[in-house]
């Protein structure tokens, strides 16, 4: 067993560098199992449903959605915020572990970053379609044009475009540059010409030079340092989309930190779900140990308490403000009225269920970890539903109150993004090393 004197063993099984290469490249070098094909089929069916919904949204228009004059942001923005939240964990994993010198992230960061990239792609699809004419999306970019107009630089919606595109670029860059040495390993072990050519192209002629490693590490640190404030600001900007409006339930200064914590919380839950599945599928429990899962569960427990506190503060401030509309939204519409079922599902899933992680046995029980990670993701979806719909459907004027329900097209786009995510992740685990091999080797030596 390889262990640091001050930390728990993070790679078990006393492995040589060659063992690590062989074990971690096995998913890429052997034929995929039946579950992989089943997953791809399922993902493709989801994609087909999503493609139909996408077609309807463009060919007929967003009148096919369940939006009304009052609820002008519906499933599209709920799901946008949900996906972008999930998309926070990957980069957060990498950079916060980098900043805090937490090496146990080496087993997880590659997959978490892949999850980020696909989740942000899914998220970006919703505002793009919500524009109504996605082919005109470039109008939002500030460039000299024949209309002699500039975009409104003061609008959080424009900030959103900037934030998400910068975040997507940063996530892809961090992900890709981190995997260059591993792609070179795959290139040097490739058994056919096509693989050698493809991995050779993307590994940029990497030859293992320590001088290049030095520059590569410096670049990773710089990108990590740049990404740290970016991660925090992206969800802050998403929160500002709501907070700068005057709607009851949205017009609150707590929204940016509350959204950020929620994003990290849901992202870590999704990381936990994926890591448990991969651990089971590829038998890599020597690299993703129960201690790794235990540590993620602790983060979730802490996140859950912060989220619970944010819910309580929101309700307290609504009462303390003395504003009838705020009081109505929180005490009537959300807690006891039309949206009470969704509200209490949200509270249970996000603030109560993860408290089971106070118990070490629960943190080390794979079934409980998996169940709670799914519960959190359901809860976080309901949180976005509550924020979005309860405030819009019942605002200041009872005469404009309306009910909201999604259409098959709305649901189709959401299901379609699951198709993108599932197929993307399955292709990732098929063709790219799922764990940063070179980091694990270096770290194994460091901790020895």
């Amino acid at each position: 067993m390889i262990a640091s004197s001050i930390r728990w063993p993070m790679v078990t099984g006393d492995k040589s560098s060659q063992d690590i290469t062989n074990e971690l490249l096995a998913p890429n070098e052997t034929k995929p199992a039946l579950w992989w094909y089943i997953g791809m089929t399922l993902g493709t069916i989801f994609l087909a449903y999503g493609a139909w919904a996408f077609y309807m949204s463009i060919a007929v228009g967003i009148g096919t959605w369940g939006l009304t004059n009052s609820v002008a942001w519906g499933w599209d923005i709920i799901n946008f915020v949900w996906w972008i939240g999930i998309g926070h964990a990957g980069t957060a994993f990498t950079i916060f572990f980098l900043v805090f010198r937490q090496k146990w992230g080496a087993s997880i960061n590659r997959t978490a970053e892949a999850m980020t990239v696909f989740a942000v792609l899914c998220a970006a699809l919703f505002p793009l379609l919500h524009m109504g004419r996605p082919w005109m999306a470039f109008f939002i970019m500030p460039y000299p044009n024949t209309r002699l107009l500039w975009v409104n630089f003061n609008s959080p919606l424009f900030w959103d475009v900037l934030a998400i595109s910068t975040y997507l670029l940063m996530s892809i860059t961090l992900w890709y540059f981190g995997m260059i040495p591993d792609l070179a390993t795959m290139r040097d072990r490739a058994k056919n010409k096509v693989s050698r050519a493809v991995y050779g192209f993307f590994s940029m002629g990497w030859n293992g030079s320590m001088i290049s490693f030095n520059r590569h590490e410096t670049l990773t640190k710089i990108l990590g340092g740049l990404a740290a404030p970016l991660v925090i600001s992206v969800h802050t900007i998403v929160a500002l989309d709501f907070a700068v409006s005057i709607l009851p339930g949205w017009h609150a200064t707590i929204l940016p930190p509350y959204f950020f914590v929620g994003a990290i919380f849901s992202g870590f839950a999704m990381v936990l779900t994926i890591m448990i599945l991969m651990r089971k599928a590829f038998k890599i429990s020597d690299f993703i140990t129960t201690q790794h899962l235990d540590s993620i569960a602790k983060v979730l427990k802490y996140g859950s308490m912060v989220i619970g506190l944010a819910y309580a503060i929101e309700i307290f401030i609504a009462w303390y403000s003395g504003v009838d509309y705020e009081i109505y939204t929180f005490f009537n519409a959300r807690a006891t009225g039309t949206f009470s079922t969704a509200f209490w599902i949200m509270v249970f899933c996000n603030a109560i269920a993860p408290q089971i992680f106070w118990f070490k046995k629960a943190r080390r029980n794979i079934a409980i970890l998996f169940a709670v990670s799914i519960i959190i993701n359901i809860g976080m979806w309901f949180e976005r539903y509550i924020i979005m719909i309860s405030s819009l459907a019942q605002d200041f004027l009872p005469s404009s109150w309306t009910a909201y329900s999604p259409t098959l097209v709305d649901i189709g786009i959401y299901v379609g993004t699951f198709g993108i995510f599932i197929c993307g992740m399955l292709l990732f685990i098929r063709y790219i090393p799922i764990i940063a091999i070179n980091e694990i080797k270096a770290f194994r030596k460091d901790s020895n």
Partner: protein
Amino acid sequence: MAQKNIVAKFKDEGKLLKALTRLKENKVNLIDVYGPFANHDILKLLTRESRLPYMSVIFGLAAIVLTFGFLYYTSVIDYPISYGGKPIFSFPPMVVVIFFICILVTTIMTVLTFHARAKIFPGKPSSPIDPSVTDDTFFLVLDQNYNPEEIKGWLQEDGADEVTEKEI
């Protein structure tokens, strides 16, 4: 005729480190070490600190200045619009845009500088010293020195698995 270099193969980076320390003490000309992962002790002995962070700071500062200029030109000079009676020149919302553009520009420019400096780019033909260099073996490459036989002796003494001469 191309010059031949001394190449020492090490499976154990502890032994490589020992050899490297002795070579550095004896002021032997080193070219590089190739290996499957970054070992920080080797990096410290072999390389100096990268100057990439300084370039990033310059890119970041340039991006801040240029973005502010751009926003001032578009919002105040070229197309001034009054949003709900707010001032034409409003700095706080500019901070957000400047912040994101700064990160965007710094990321792109730093990555490009890395490519230029490390001379690696997508599609570059690969020529690893040995296929095992990306798996589990380190290779220490030395320049022509005045006492090659003595150096080979040291390397073997320090535990090199193989010492050869090769054109690199």
